[in-house]
């Protein structure tokens, strides 16, 4: 259970990015954080693992206050939170396998990691995860040889191999095409339910948020203006989050495209392809 209370962040430039945010995320909940650029979505996520230092407030994960941790304890806490990034943030010149094993850095010593002598159990787990996302045959490829969707899947493996309790997902689909975006969101969603993980997903795309999240929190100028289920996102709510605009198209599309999405997965008159192909973007 993640509990954020009165989270405030003032950047050194004087900008007040977050004005006392309260969010509780129960175990196993997938929550989408939507809002316009500059609303503070990234800041919320980065305050949770303290890539950004909160100015005030408390963030507790299973009764440990993250804000008060010293640097060694903070590192141990970060191991319990997997992060997935917008531009994938893979180390481009390392192989897929090395990138996945990066998720284990918090558990092994410096020389062990420098010499790439990870425990066999970590390597087994890395292969298992890569297989799960359909990339086990790519283990020795360099990260910069992969396509966007493939890179994001490696990013997901890197987060999951940490064996986290919470996923922090920052704009996972902003650099991906619409189809790959859905595949990635579906994958995140599936993995969360498989492992009973909770997740906070920052996302621009309201439609995707509605399709894949159980709960939506709308952020505007550092304040929460909506917190509720996806189907309660009315034009009025979207206006309060993003400002005046004709929202009918956005909302109607969800209703129309949701069945479409299902049809997408069934290839008619063909033997159903294995999961791996679908995930690897081969269909």
């Amino acid at each position, binding site marked *: 259970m993640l509990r954020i209370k009165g989270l405030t962040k003032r950047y050194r430039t004087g900008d007040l990015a977050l004005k006392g945010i309260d969010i509780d995320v129960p175990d196993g909940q997938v929550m989408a954080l939507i809002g316009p650029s500059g609303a503070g979505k990234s800041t919320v996520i980065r305050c949770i*693992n303290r*890539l950004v230092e909160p100015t005030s407030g408390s963030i507790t994960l299973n009764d440990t206050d993250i804000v008060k941790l010293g640097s060694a304890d903070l*590192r*141990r*806490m*970060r*191991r319990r*939170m*997997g*992060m997935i*990034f917008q*531009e994938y*943030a*893979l*180390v*481009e*010149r*390392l192989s897929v396998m*090395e990138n996945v094993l*990066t*998720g*284990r*850095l*918090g*558990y092994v010593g*410096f020389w062990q*990691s*420098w010499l790439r002598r990870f425990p066999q159990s970590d390597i087994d787990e890395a292969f298992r995860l890569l297989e799960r996302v359909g990339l086990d045959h790519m283990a020795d490829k360099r990260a910069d040889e992969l396509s966007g969707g493939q890179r994001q899947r490696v*990013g997901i493996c*890197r987060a999951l191999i*940490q064996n986290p309790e919470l996923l*922090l997902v920052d704009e996972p689909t902003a650099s991906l095409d619409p189809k790959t975006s859905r595949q990635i969101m579906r994958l995140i969603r599936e993995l969360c339910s498989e492992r009973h993980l909770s997740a906070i997903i920052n996302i621009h795309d309201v439609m995707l948020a509605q399709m894949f999240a159980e709960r939506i929190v709308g952020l505007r100028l550092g304040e929460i203006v909506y917190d509720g289920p996806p189907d309660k996102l009315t034009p009025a709510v979207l206006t309060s989050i993003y400002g005046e605009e004709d929202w009918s198209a956005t909302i109607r599309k969800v209703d129309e495209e949701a069945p479409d999405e299902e049809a997408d997965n069934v290839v008619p008159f063909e033997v159903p392809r294995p999961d791996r192909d679908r995930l690897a973007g081969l269909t």
Partner: protein
Amino acid sequence: MTTIPARGRTWRRRDRRTELLVWAAWLFAVALFVGCFQLISDKTIWAFVWDAPTQAGDLAVRMVPPDWLYIRTLGRPIWDTINIATIGTLIAILLAIPVAYCAARNTTPSVSIVRPIALFIIVSSRSINALIWALMLVTIIGPGVFSGIIAIALRSIGFCAKLLYEAIEEIDEGQVEAVRATGASGAQVTGYGIVPQVLPAFAGISVFRWDINIRESTVLGLVGAGGIGLELNAAITQLYWTQVSLILLVIIGTVIVSEWVSAKIRHAII
């Protein structure tokens, strides 16, 4: 909506005032050049200058043919020269890594204290030529190859550290952030987030500097710091012009080989 008539509007790159200023600047530059030329001309003994082609031709004749047999004594000095360059470069690289790490704004332990010190090391190393370092070192540790190695190393630290710290400052912070977010320690963040990103630049810089150092180390002998320059100096003072021409040929050959090697290595890295 009103539209501005498109025709009849004039456009100039600069307005009249700027135009005049530009002309004035050019006039001043030309006047300065003519003035300087006059000054230099007055202080030049033109008879010597007009004589130069004859002198050069004369020297060229005395240099031909090179004293080919002299090559047997050049093996050792050229080997020394290559060693000075190579070992000097290695030492410089080893010392440049921590200096660059401290100088880069995103990795330095302290922006207000450590970084200025690192930058000062870089500037002082870069501003003093290897020949001057050698001149001082020969008086301090005596003539020989060792002085040459240290001179090359001292000169190269600044060069390598400067290029390396610029490479470190240009890395993608997102990758570093991602490694940090996994709970990695500071050393691990460096090893996984920063090192892979700067490794190609690092290798390129090292090879490039080695290539430069081969050329620089050929002259160090002039001040007694070992290598082929010693032979060159001796040959010139003794007016053995046929030996001088052979040494110059050997130097050119060495430099061509080193350029070829470094080009090959850089190509392999990038």
